[in-house]
C-alpha cells in the first residue's frame, strides 16, 4: 500500500529523517516506536503532507502514486488519514461542517456522488456509537473546549466517517486515561479490515495491548534501527531502548 524509500526530511535546515525505509501492505498494522525526538511524529507529518518539512531525498509511493507530489488535501483524498497528536480547536466550524465538507471533497476527488444531508446524517450517527460520543458533539465547533480524551476520540470518529485506506495514529494514546484508551483502541480495531492498513506511532507499549501490531519498528535519530514482530514491543517495555541503541552502535 505504501512504500517509503530512503526518505530524508529537514525542518529549518535541520535533518530529522535520515533515510527511512518502510513498506506497509494492506491488512497490516505497523507500530513505530522510539524515544522522544527520534523523528516519529515528523514521519507521520511528512506522510500527511505538512509543508513545513522539506523532503530532500527519497520517495514515497502510495498505491503506486508518488505521494510527495501531492498537496496534503489530495493525499487525504487518496486515502491517507492522520490522527493528530494535538488536534487543533477550530471555533466557528462545527464537526458536521468539517465532516460533510471533507467527505464530499474526497468523494468528488474519486468521481463519486456527493452525499445528501440524510445519507450523511445516517452515516455519521452510525459511526458515532463506535467511539461513544454523544450527538451534541456534531453541532459543537471542532475540538473547541474538548477534553484531551474527547479530542482523541473525535479523531477516531472522523477516521470512521472518512474510511481511509491508510490511517496514521500519531501518539493517539498520549494523555488518555485507561477508559479513553480502551474506547479509542476498540474503535481503531473495529475499523481494521483486510483492505486498509494502520501505522501506530507511539512512545509506549500500552496502546499495543489493544491494537496488536503485525510489525514493530524502532526509530532512532531519524532511522529505523530495528524491526520485529509484536514481541519487540514487549522487550522495549521491559528493557527500554538503550540495548537496541547499543546494539546498533556496535554494528556501526
Amino acid at each position: 500500500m505504501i512504500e517509503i524509500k530512503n526518505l530524508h526530511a529537514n525542518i529549518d535546515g535541520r535533518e530529522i529523517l535520515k533515510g527511512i525505509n518502510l513498506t506497509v501492505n494492506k491488512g497490516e498494522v505497523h507500530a513505530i516506536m522510539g524515544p522522544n525526538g527520534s523523528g516519529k511524529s515528523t514521519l507521520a507529518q511528512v506522510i500527511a503532507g505538512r509543508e513545513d518539512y522539506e523532503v530532500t531525498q527519497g520517495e514515497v509511493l502510495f498505491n503506486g502514486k508518488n505521494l510527495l507530489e501531492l498537496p496534503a488535501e489530495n493525499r487525504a483524498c487518496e486515502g491517507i488519514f492522520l490522527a493528530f497528536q494535538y488536534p487543533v480547536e477550530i471555533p466557528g466550524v462545527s464537526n458536521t461542517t468539517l465532516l460533510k465538507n471533507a467527505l464530499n471533497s474526497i468523494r468528488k476527488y474519486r468521481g463519486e456522488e456527493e452525499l445528501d444531508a440524510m445519507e450523511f446524517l445516517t452515516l455519521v450517527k452510525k459511526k458515532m456509537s463506535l467511539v461513544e460520543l454523544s450527538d451534541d458533539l456534531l453541532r459543537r465547533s471542532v475540538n473547541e473546549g474538548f477534553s484531551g480524551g474527547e479530542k482523541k476520540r473525535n479523531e477516531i470518529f472522523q477516521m470512521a466517517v472518512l474510511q481511509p485506506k491508510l490511517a496514521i495514529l500519531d501518539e493517539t494514546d498520549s494523555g488518555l486515561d485507561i477508559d479513553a484508551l480502551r474506547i479509542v483502541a476498540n474503535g481503531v480495531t473495529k475499523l481494521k479490515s483486510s483492505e486498509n492498513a494502520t501505522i501506530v506511532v507511539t512512545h509506549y507499549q500500552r496502546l499495543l495491548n489493544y491494537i496488536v501490531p503485525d510489525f514493530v519498528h524502532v526509530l532512532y535519530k531519524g532511522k529505523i534501527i530495528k524491526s520485529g514482530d509484536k514481541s519487540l514491543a514487549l522487550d522495549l517495555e521491559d528493557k527500554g531502548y538503550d540495548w537496541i541503541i547499543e546494539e546498533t552502535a556496535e554494528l556501526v
Partner: protein
Amino acid sequence: MNSSHTMKEQFIRQFQSFETLLTGEDVSPLYKIRKDAIDKFSALNFPTVKDEEWKYTNINPLLNKSFKPANAIPEVDPAIIGKYLFNKNEFITLVFINGYFSKEFSDVESLPEGLILETISDAIKKHPQLVLDYFSKSSSGGKNIFTELNTAFADHGTFVFVEERVVIQKPIQILYLTHADEIFVSPRNLFVISKNAQVKIIETFAGFGASSYFTNQVTEFLVNENAVVEHVRIQDEQLQSFHISHLAVELERSSNFSSYNINFGGSLVRNNVNTKFLGEFAECRLNGLYVAEGSQFIDNHTSIDHAKPNCLSNELYKGILNDTAHAVFNGKVFVRQDAQKTNAYQQNKNILLSNEALVNTKPQLEIFADDVKCSHGATVGQLDKEQLFYLKARGIQEKEAKALLLYAFASDVVHSISMLQVRDHLEALLAEKIL
C-alpha cells in the same frame, strides 16, 4: 481637478435650488433647521488627513467627483429589490429608491398599534411637535460637515416612534437602493423608542448597476428607559460608490441596545457610531464586520460614552481584507469620573489575506473613574496555519478550507442576531463574498 472648496460651493448652490422646491415649507420649523445646517456647513471645511479623526481617511476621491440631488425614481427590476428584502409577511417594509419613498415596493399597511412609521417629510407634516422634539438633537453640534450636509438636504428617510410599553413584533426593514452616476442621497432617520418599548430595525444600503453615487446618511436613535432595541445596518453599496454615515444613539436608564454594523460595499466608506449612556444600568453591544477587496476603503469610528455609572458596553469589530483593501478601526471608550462600576469591553480583530492589504486599528480607552472593569485589544493576522493544515489533512481543498475558516471568523459577529432570516441573509452574503 476639483477641490474641497469647489465641492462646498456646489453643495451650497444645490441647496439654493433645493430650497425653491420646498414650496410652502419656508414657514415650517424644519426650514429653519435646514437653513441653520447649511450655514454651519458653509462655515466648516471638509476634513483632511491632518484632522486627527480623519488621519487615515483621504476623502479626495469623493471631492474629485461632483454630485447632484436625484430627481426621479429609476426603473427597478423587482428581482434586485427582492435580493435585499426579507419576507414581507414577517417584516414591515419600507423601500427608498434614489432617496424617494417607493410605495410600490413598500408594505406599511396595517401597522401595529403604538407604532408611528412615516417618511421623515410626512412625519414633520403630521406630527411636527413629536419630530421636532428630537430631530437633530443628538447627531451634531455643528462640528461634523457631513452631518450638517445631511440635515440641510434631509428630505427622505424614516421616522419611527414606538409608544410606551409597546413591543413591535415584526421587525422593520428599511431598504435604501440607489442607482445612477453622480447623484447624492441624504437619508435621514429618527427612531424614538419610548419607555419599556421594544423594536428591531434593519437598514439596508445597496445599489445596482456599476454606478458611482454618494450616500450621506444620518440616523438618530433615542432609546428611553428600559427599552430594548436591536439595530442591524447592512451596507452593501456598489463598489464605485461613496458612503458616509453617522449613527447617534442615546441610551436612557436600564435600556438595552444591540447594533450590528455590517459592511461589504463601497469604494470609500466612513461610519461614525456614537453611543452615549444618559442613565444607569443600561447596556450597549456594538458588533461590526467589514469585508473588503480590490481597492475598497472602509473606516469605522465608534465611540461609547460612559457618562453614567453601572453601565455595560461590549464591542466586537472584525475585518477581512484582501488585495489592496484598506480599513480603519478607531474605537473610543470614555469612562467619566462618576461612571463607577462600569463594564467596558472592546475588541477589534482583523485577517489580512494579501501582503498589500492594510488596517489601521486604534482601540482607545479613556478612564477617569477608579472602580471599573475595562479591557480592549486589537489583533491583525493571517489565517491560522495549524487550522488550515488540519482541514486540508481531512481532504478539504485549500480554497474551501480557507473559506470555512474565514466564514467562521466573520460569522461570529452575526451569530447573536435574533432574527433568523436576517442572520441567514447575512451568512449568505458573507459566503458570496468569501467563496
